[in-house]
């Protein structure tokens, strides 16, 4: 294959997105994200509880409060969580350093989530990242104390974060049918959060025909003390515009579009395959107009991604002032989002964003860049990045943490859940390279376990990620969404293309012709049993 190197300036570097799962609930969300396949973005798990941490799928893990809780949880005490995160602040800081966007997923109410989330948010802000917090609120039956702990943390987060989306566990019941199992309800909630994160990444990272970036995102969310409205839908086949819009409005955070009535600024982002037509866009925006007040400021973006195939995705983001929330008195769904203009990092990010996407549809990325490139470049990556981490880590981290850190430092440069095929060369690269970093992290053997840790990650879209240093992720980035879409489609909407249906209408049905089949236990009751049983 002929390698094709594109202009690296066009996109946001992959490594600039980091997703952090904090605490037990955060770990679950992270798991879902990892399983659903989040291209490019780095996953970082933070927890006090070593057991949950070690079983997680995240490539990067930081155990909080190693000396404080000794590998146990916080037992629901936010104070402990608070102290634990302070103890591990330096590692976290090193890990977040240089990231443009940080997503923090956490469940409020417990010790680690409530205690550490505000600190993590603050650290991320201090490192200059745009931070979006996804927080779940505890069930009502968990009691008043947990609810209060969650509220306290939420108030702090509202001030500290760029955008805060909360999902109330009490509304989980709306996500699934009454008969479905409890695990499905939790999975659905996690899936929703995962979808939200993906959509935001898709939005800011993918170059568009009509571009939207972090600046638009910020202005869509810019109201004082607001709650974030969020909807994301994907559909394919005939009438995909209408059904994608329907999916968007079905999002539990939108309340069937009723909540959009009061929105002042709405960000709409479309992404489709190469066959996305202007007519479709017009049709869709027309329908959307019914749900949005005429005076609202609509920020419209569209992007073409060949990997979308024949599907079309819509993302809708807006914010409501909190007072309108009170009027609606939907206490079960409390969401806040706070845009803090002073801390706003988008100034630094904007130029990049703006600069990066004037070019519309990018050509398909080379599927398998030649091996030599891959083999050669990682050394540079490690040389430039690893010492930084290890130095920072070594200063703060006492002995037991070294192993983790060493693994982490090595894992770090690979910005995503990656390629089993890559593992071997990777390890080889690592070993000659490690002496350089060994001063800080002498446990070379720690390198060996790291591939094992990654093994559950062996994702179907194996693709060398760590080709070029620094610039490389930039180059790689557009490839990432392109690669990620297929698995997503597989999980969400089955395979692309209309699914063939087992035809029940083979026989005429007389006067019941054209009605919905009266199916009971696989038999169409409208057909004569005389004919059915004869077969």
């Amino acid at each position, binding site marked *: 294959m002929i390698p094709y190197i594109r202009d690296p300036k066009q996109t946001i570097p992959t490594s600039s997105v980091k997703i952090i799962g904090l605490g037990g609930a955060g770990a679950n969300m992270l798991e879902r994200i990892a399983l659903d396949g989040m291209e490019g973005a780095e996953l970082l798990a933070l927890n006090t509880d070593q057991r949950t941490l070690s079983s997680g799928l995240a490539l990067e893990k930081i155990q909080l409060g190693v000396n404080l809780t000794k590998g146990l949880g916080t037992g629901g005490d936010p104070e402990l969580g608070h102290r634990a995160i302070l103890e591990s602040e330096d590692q976290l800081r090193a890990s977040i350093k240089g990231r443009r966007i940080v997503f923090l997923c956490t469940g409020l109410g417990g010790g680690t989530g409530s205690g550490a989330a505000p600190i993590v948010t603050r650290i991320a802000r201090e490192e200059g990242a745009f931070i979006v917090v996804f927080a779940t609120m505890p069930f009502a039956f968990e009691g008043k104390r947990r609810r209060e702990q969650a509220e306290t943390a939420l108030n702090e987060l509202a001030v500290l974060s760029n955008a805060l989306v909360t999902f109330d566990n009490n509304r989980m019941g*709306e996500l699934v049918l009454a008969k479905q199992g409890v695990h499905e309800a939790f999975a659905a909630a996690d899936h929703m959060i995962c979808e939200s994160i993906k959509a935001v990444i898709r939005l800011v990272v993918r170059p568009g025909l009509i571009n939207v970036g972090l600046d638009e995102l910020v202005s869509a969310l810019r109201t004082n003390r607001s709650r974030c409205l969020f909807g994301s839908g994907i559909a394919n086949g005939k009438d995909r515009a209408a059904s994608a819009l329907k999916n968007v409005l079905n999002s539990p955070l939108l309340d069937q579009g009723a909540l959009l009535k009061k929105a002042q600024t709405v960000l709409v982002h479309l992404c489709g395959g190469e066959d996305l037509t202007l007519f479709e866009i017009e049709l869709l925006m027309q329908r959307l107009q019914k749900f949005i007040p005429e005076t609202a400021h609509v920020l419209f973006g569209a992007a073409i991604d060949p990997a979308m195939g024949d599907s079309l995705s819509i993302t809708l983001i807006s914010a409501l002032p909190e007072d309108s929330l009170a009027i609606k008195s939907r206490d079960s769904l409390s969401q806040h989002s706070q845009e803090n203009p002073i801390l706003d990092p988008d100034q630094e990010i904007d130029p990049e964003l703006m600069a990066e996407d004037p070019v519309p549809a990018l050509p398909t990325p080379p599927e398998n860049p030649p091996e030599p490139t891959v083999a050669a470049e990682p050394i540079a990556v490690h040389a430039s990045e690893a010492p930084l981490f290890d130095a920072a880590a070594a200063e703060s981290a006492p002995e037991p943490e070294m192993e983790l850190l060493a693994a982490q430092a090595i894992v770090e440069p690979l910005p995503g859940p990656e390629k089993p095929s890559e593992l071997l060369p990777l390890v080889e690269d690592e070993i000659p390279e490690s002496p350089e970093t060994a001063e800080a992290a002498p446990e070379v053997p720690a390198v060996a376990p790291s591939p094992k840790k990654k093994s559950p990650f062996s994702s179907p879209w194996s693709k060398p990620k760590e080709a070029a240093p620094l610039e490389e992720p930039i180059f790689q980035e557009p490839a990432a969404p392109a690669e990620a879409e297929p698995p997503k489609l597989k999980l969400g909407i089955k395979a692309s293309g209309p699914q063939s249906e087992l035809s029940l209408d083979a026989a005429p049905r007389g*006067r019941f012709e054209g009605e919905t089949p*009266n199916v*009971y236990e696989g038999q169409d*009751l*409208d057909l004569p*049993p*005389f*004919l059915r049983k004869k077969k």
Partner: protein
Amino acid sequence: MARRTKIHVGLEIGSSKTCMVVGEVKADSAVKILGIGVTKTAGVRKGEIYDFSQARACLKDALAKAEDASDVEIGSVYLAVTGAHIQGINHRGTYRLPDGEPTVTPEHVEEARSIAREVHIPQDHVYLHPIIRNYWLDGLEHSMSPVGLFGKTVEADFHVVHGIGTRIQNSIKLVREMPLEVDDIVFSPIATAQMALDREQRERGALVIDIGGGTTDYALYLNGAIAASGCIPVGGDHITNDIHLVTGLPFSSADRLKITEGDASADPVRSVGIAKLTDDRGFAEVEVSRSILNEVIRQRLEETLKLVRQRLPVGSVGEIGAGVFLTGGTSLMRGFSELAFDVFGRDIYRPELPELSGTQASFRDPHYATAIGLIRYAQILDAERAKPPGIFGKIGRMFWSSGQ
């Protein structure tokens, strides 16, 4: 205090006919049927309205006929609803008495009842009836409220019937457009059971199956309380349709053939030869082999009854002591009792309508069982409402106010 005579009206909008029955409940609780308005229904299929304006015209006609026959101006009706979306489920609420309160108070019972009524139903569904089955006090069954007795744990068993709210609201809307008020809505098999079963039969265990034109509704009573109810969207129309599909006859001939010649008994003697329909001039219009005709009918009905049996709680067929009571127009099918016996292995009855004073003998017709059952239901409800308002009524009223 002398109780006044009251007039109740029962309305059933079935798939094949709309039937409005005007009944007078005398001071001594005897029921007299004053008049019936029946008209063929159009626009209703499988118990649910699919053509609103046609259904409205039919209802108007039935109303006029009923008012004519009974000489009563009808202002409000009891409405029977059915449809595959309506389900009945059993649920038990348990309440443990707080320490230091040895006897059961009304509040405790109320608590147990409210727990029992909290059934998880799909979001678009509404409650039709929560029907109390019985109470349990420390594992011992009590048919009446155990208030004042000593105990630790009160339990209330409820049978909760629920269905899709908007569809039920549309039935109500249809009636309101007459304009008529709706006193209460009742799930059809429950109304039919009021008619078909007496207390003793309920005590011994009985199953009522109402096979109408579009649906088959069933209600099972065990130990005096309702144990299961539901609706299968298959009825007499399906038999006609089956004959049409198998033989290729037009619907009208298929329907006539079903009524005049059909037999469901699987008795080989009755399946010999050819069934004929003659036209006005005496020519054979239609000829169908009886063996095919009967086989088509039998297989349809057998399947329907087996579906009912499948849906009943496990082992409950064995507990049916009194028998299976068949009603509805399709139950007039020849040989149906034999078929039902083959399926259930219990005594089979066509319900004898209880003592109703009235002139028309046609009231003994199972076609009207549900509508007449509504009168009986209204009578029971009235008796309960005379006491502190019954839970039926309360829930009913709640539903109406929200169903505006």
